[in-house]
């Protein structure tokens, strides 16, 4: 990430290049040049870590590229790999799994994150400690928390079984991670636990931007707490919610480490996400052409999601601001 100055001048440079139709003064042109110069490292970095690999992946996706045999031919097949994706049952299965887990977990995280953010936004004793401890699940490496959840769900020693049995909800232990009807929800719960703090953190930042006067005014007008939340808090929080949802949805679509460590896609392929499927296509099937195609498909999905969020949800927000 560039520094704050870098960002500001960088933006003015871009605005200067594309935005203004008015004639530019020498001073503005100099600003633009300086801005471009300062933004150059960031642009080069993005080129190196995003654009070039992406281009390479798209290029690879047009070939039948298997590393299985050393001197196998690597013919150019055009869009054939993409046609294969569209009739690939495993791809649709992975898409369904990803959609289900991402949809449920992001929705649950929004609700839970909002509750947590509202709670820790109030002032009470020990607030700092509470705020810090809320973040712990998110701060843990996913692999570590996935291992932890594997133990929680363990059929013989797991805490989850112990609790449920003590509460009398089940009679014999459930092997959470090998029951097709249960595993996907067990995984979703672990995902929600892990990323709700992130949602809460972003929403908390948004809540803190809301000036206290607005609440005072609504209190004077005799608004109930519920009305205040719907009429004051939520509209102002909307842009923040948008960004939080955007981040979380993209993240959930790319979910890989949790299923890889917790279930490795099993039982069967009932928890195989699109990224895990792509990974297996690369590293187990050694099919780098088709794997690249799958990676490009994920990229397209993420792009579509981003556009939907920004166009559909973003527009009224800007309107509301004016």
């Amino acid at each position, binding site marked *: 990430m560039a520094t704050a100055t870098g960002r*500001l001048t960088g*933006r*003015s440079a871009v*605005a200067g290049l594309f935005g203004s139709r008015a004639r530019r003064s020498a001073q503005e042109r100099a600003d633009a040049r300086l801005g471009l110069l300062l933004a150059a490292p960031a642009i080069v970095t*993005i080129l190196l*870590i*995003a654009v070039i*690999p*992406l281009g*390479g*992946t798209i290029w690879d996706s047009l070939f039948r590229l*298997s*590393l*299985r*045999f*050393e*001197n196998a031919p690597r013919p150019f097949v055009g869009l054939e790999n993409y046609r294969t994706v569209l009739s690939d049952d495993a791809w649709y299965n992975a898409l369904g799994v990803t959609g289900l887990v991402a949809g449920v977990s992001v929705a649950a995280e929004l609700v839970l994150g909002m509750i947590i953010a509202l709670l820790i936004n109030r002032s009470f004793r020990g607030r700092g400690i509470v705020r810090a401890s809320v973040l712990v699940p998110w701060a843990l490496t996913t692999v570590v928390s996935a291992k932890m959840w*594997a133990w929680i769900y*363990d*059929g*013989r020693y797991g805490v989850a079984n112990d609790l449920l049995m003590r509460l009398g909800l089940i009679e014999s*232990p459930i*092997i959470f*991670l*090998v*029951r*097709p009807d249960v595993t996907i929800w067990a995984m979703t719960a672990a995902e929600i636990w892990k990323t709700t703090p992130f949602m809460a953190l972003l929403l908390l930042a948004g809540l803190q931007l809301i000036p206290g006067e607005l609440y005072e005014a609504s209190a004077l007008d005799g608004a109930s707490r519920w009305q205040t939340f719907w009429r004051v808090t939520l509209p102002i929080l909307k*842009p923040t919610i*948008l*960004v939080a949802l*955007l*981040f979380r949805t*993209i993240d959930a679509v*790319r979910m*890989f480490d949790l299923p890889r460590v917790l279930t*490795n*896609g*099993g*039982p*069967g*392929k*009932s928890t195989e996400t699109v*990224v895990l499927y792509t*990974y*297996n296509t*690369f*590293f*187990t*099937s*050694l099919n*780098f052409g088709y794997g*690249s195609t799958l*990676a490009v498909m*994920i*990229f397209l999905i*993420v792009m579509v999601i*981003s556009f939907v969020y*920004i166009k559909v949800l*973003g527009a009224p927000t*800007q309107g509301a601001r004016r």
Partner: protein
Amino acid sequence: MSDMLTRRSSRRAFVKRSLLVGLAVPALPLLAACGGSATTPGKPAEPAKPAEPAKPAESKPAAPAAQPAATSAPAAAAPAKPTEAPKPAAAAPAQKGTATATTVVWFAGRDTTGYTPKQVEAFNKANTSFQIDYQEQGATTTDLHDKFVTVAGAKDSSVDIVSLDVPFVPEFAAAGWTIPVDDAFPKDEQAKFFSGTVHGATYEGKIWAIPWFNNGPGLFYRKDLFDAKGLKPPKTYDELLSTALALQTPEMAGFAMQLPQNEGGIINWIEYLWGYGGDLVDDKLNVVVDQGTAGVDGMQKILDFVYKDKILPEAALQFRLGSDVMDLFRGGKVSMIRLWFSTVGTLYNPDSAIKTGQWDVAPLPSKTGEKPGPGCLGDWNLGISKFSTKQKEALEVVKILTGQEQQRTRFLDGGFLPARPAVFDDPDIQKKYPYAKAAQASFEILKPRPVTPYWPQMSADAVQPAFGQAMARQIPPDQAIKQMADKMRQILKG
């Protein structure tokens, strides 16, 4: 620029930037696949660089010097107790040694017994011309596979030696990632190894690795409990059931083996498939798993053990590592287990609740009991990366590691069974491991998994998901076998 303007556009820019980040992030794993490997394993290789100019002169005289020590059998007492012996002798050369020694990087699978790191440490202390940078890659064999695919796929030179599970030999050879070692491992040397292990290191008429340690399954059982009830180790699957039922208590399971949806799990079923007279593929690599009823019968037998007879805890479906089963046995929680010999070392650890004399090993049961049940060949080999810049040195290290003396020490101290039959004749070995002769006999009948570069994919894409679904009772065994066979045929078509 006014403050107002800044603030307003900053939010829009933030959204824009978040979009950019969102686009960049999916590309990251791809980048990691190409470039990431260079950053991590590249580093450890660095210290060797300064020594490189001296290498051609140094390595040649060093190699023959190291070789006799490795091959001239038990007489060489020094390497057997490397921690003590080298002290006086190596004190001075050690300093010279570190300056001129060649460091080779060894990609290995996780050793759950913790013995190999110690072995490497001893090797590095005792050896002045070579140093090993030993790197375990993840918890499972698949992790090692994927890491080496990443490195070799990028033609990265940061790996010299790679540990090879039997199925990796044809896969990596076909992909052109390992080199044939026929010259370093000639026919007369091959004759000193179990023929099964040499066969497992062969692909298309060439040898691609040197067998490092032998591995096969055995039926480990609680001798004390068996004796108390006057029971004998079961010879058939039905006897296994009745014996387990006789010994089972609420605190102790009757029987355990690995049944997760991974390579370690499917092998347990494949042994039952063989036990019922079936196979996955025939000699010409035609898929035959759906011919006859052996596949279904074997799977049904295991399912019955878990869900009907309840001698095998359902938790076995999540025993992803061999050590999960061994820990159960070591803790006195199960009366019999089917497990790899490679985990036996931990039974000698002081923390084991089961002491020597309380346990023994028997051959696997079979359907009829006339012969022992078939076990899966699971030996490990050491191969050389094609992209290594120190292939010659790496090969010398591999020759030492697979030599008689190292295999003997590894058996004696770590419990890893040797790939060289001669090691079994050692009196110390026979004294420490009363079961050694029985293990040696069982190695003669081990069967390999399908020897084809397609096996890892067939295993992961066809066999494992179908097996996993059947074990979770998501689909019945006959449907699992059909699904598996169809997918295997599809994969073999390429």
